[in-house]
């Protein structure tokens, strides 16, 4: 796709500045959570290693792919709107939403496995972190999807054009944040030994 003509001077931060405040705060919350996890892991390495093996890494990996692909789709949606192709933009956003939905479904399967094995927040510190971190992230995927969906509705009403597409970029930035957090969370909780 030849798109270079429309993309002169990228702004330092795409989208509305307000969302970046929000993204920054969200990252702060996850950051503190990750640090707490790391500190507890150092103090209980054996226990953390032992229970880490019970996690479903395959589903986690597929979910990582789903979110990264979905992030790519929102990039395409932003490109499309910059070319004033509204319906193409909407289609890419649907594709991104599909990725998010896939993530939620796989994650629910993972949770139902854990819950049916009788695991809950009180089982041990590792599962406490695993469940609270991933569930908090799960809620962010839901919120991200709601934002993308709101953009789909607005786009269909013709709210965005090649000149005025801050809204699409704003939603895309948030969605990338949701993806980014997972890219840190997945290796941290599922893989690193």
């Amino acid at each position, binding site marked *: 796709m030849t798109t270079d003509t429309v993309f002169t001077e990228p702004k330092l931060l795409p989208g*509305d500045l*307000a969302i970046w*405040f*929000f993204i920054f*705060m*969200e990252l*702060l*919350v996850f950051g*503190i*959570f990750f640090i*707490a996890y790391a500190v507890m892991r150092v103090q209980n390495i054996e226990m953390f290693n032992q229970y880490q093996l019970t996690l479903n890494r395959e589903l986690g990996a597929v979910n990582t792919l789903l979110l990264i692909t979905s992030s790519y789709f929102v990039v395409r949606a932003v490109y499309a709107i910059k070319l004033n192709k509204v319906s193409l933009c909407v289609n890419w956003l649907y594709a991104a939403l599909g990725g998010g939905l896939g993530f939620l479904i796989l994650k629910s399967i993972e949770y139902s496995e854990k819950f049916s094995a009788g695991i809950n*927040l*009180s089982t041990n510190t590792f599962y*406490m*972190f695993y469940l*609270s971190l991933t569930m908090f992230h799960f809620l962010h995927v839901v919120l991200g999807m709601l934002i993308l969906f709101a953009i789909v509705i607005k786009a269909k009403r013709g709210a965005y054009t090649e000149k005025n597409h801050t809204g699409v970029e704003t939603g895309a930035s948030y969605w990338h944040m949701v993806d980014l957090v997972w890219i840190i969370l997945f290796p941290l909780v599922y893989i690193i030994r």
Partner: protein
Amino acid sequence: MKYESQGIAKLYFIAAIALFVGQILFGVTMGLQYVMGDFLFPEIPFNVARMVHTNLLIVWLLFGFMGSAYFLVPEEAERELYSPMLAKVMFWVFLTAGVLTILGYLLVPYARLAEITMNDLLPTMGREFLEQPTITKIGIVIVALAFIFNIGMTILSGRKTVINVVLLTGLVGLAVFFLFSFYNPDNLVLDKYFWWFVVHLWVEGVWELIMASLLAYVLIKVTGVDREVIEKWLYIIIAMALISGLVGTGHHFFWIGTPDYWQWLGSIFSALEPIPFFMMTLFAFNVVNKRRRDHPNKAAVLWALGTAVMAFLGAGVWGFLHTLAPVNFYTHGTQITAAHGHMAFYGAYVMVVLTMISYSMPLMRGQKAANVNAQKHEIRSFWIMTISMVFITLLLTGAGIMQVYLQRYAADPLPFMVVQDRLAHFYWAREVAGITFLYGLFLYIYSFFAKGEEVADVE
């Protein structure tokens, strides 16, 4: 004042200020009882004074919120209030219920009050801050429903702005969470657990929405800054307040018999609770610096900025001080909590209501702003009350630190009452600060009657 029905707020504000005076009178009484245990005993024992002090605070703040909503909503919705009559009737119902309840606390022993009000049928009494007889609680629900119906109908059929929608969300949340006060399980852990659904989710959840929207409204009015800019701030602030505040409830679940994981969830999420307050401070100063006009009501601008700063200090900084589980292990239920409680309530909720009163009262009295002399007194009262509250907070913090050390941390911990005796000079100094606060409050009331030269309208 653009709409006639906004004037109803005046009734609510007058009642709010009257009850505020009552609250402070009981506050200084109780402050003295800290050092003179038998002062006014047996007429007004400490436990009764405390109940009246805290209940009056809640009731007058509710009057303040309702008054603010009645003033703000018609203007934002660009139409008259759905039913001014209903608002007036509910005012008298609420005032009567509130006054009768307080008189009940003062005139009959609490157990007798429970009997008279047939608490046995649906026992909800006897819990801190929710001491109201069940029948009063039902009254509060009816008033709240009528109020939300009135406000809701006005908004739904009028212009919907971010400000009035956020305000409505906060008010609906306030009503919904109050319903947990009717749930009173026998299990003490469950009882406390759901008790916090009212207490925490009010002051660290939905009330923050109310506060942010009131502040945003006054700032739009006094600075003339674009609504769009202010609305964006409002969105971020409430999103952050809810993300940190909802799970932040966990900081009350550290030691009451709830599962261990609350120590993590409560610590992590509540550690972030200062952020929305910090953003409010940034927001308020930013907007005032970018103002497009110098509003003649200087006092209202000062109250708005003061709210942002004091809420951040009281709720944010003093809250953070003892919110982490390892710290809270030593500090829970000490004077540190009292220090935080005083500055947070004053800084966030008292001041935001006074901001609304300061902005709207002159308008309801047919002026753009209060006269020069009145504003001078009001501004002076702002400083007296605020500085007194800073002293109350610092002194209670000092007392709290000593209490934690002597009673819980030292190698040979001392019993509670022995420690209380050793804190006497802190309490005496706090009493002085309390009386100064009361003086500030009287000056504030005087400012409504002070005559003087009309303000120059620079708009």
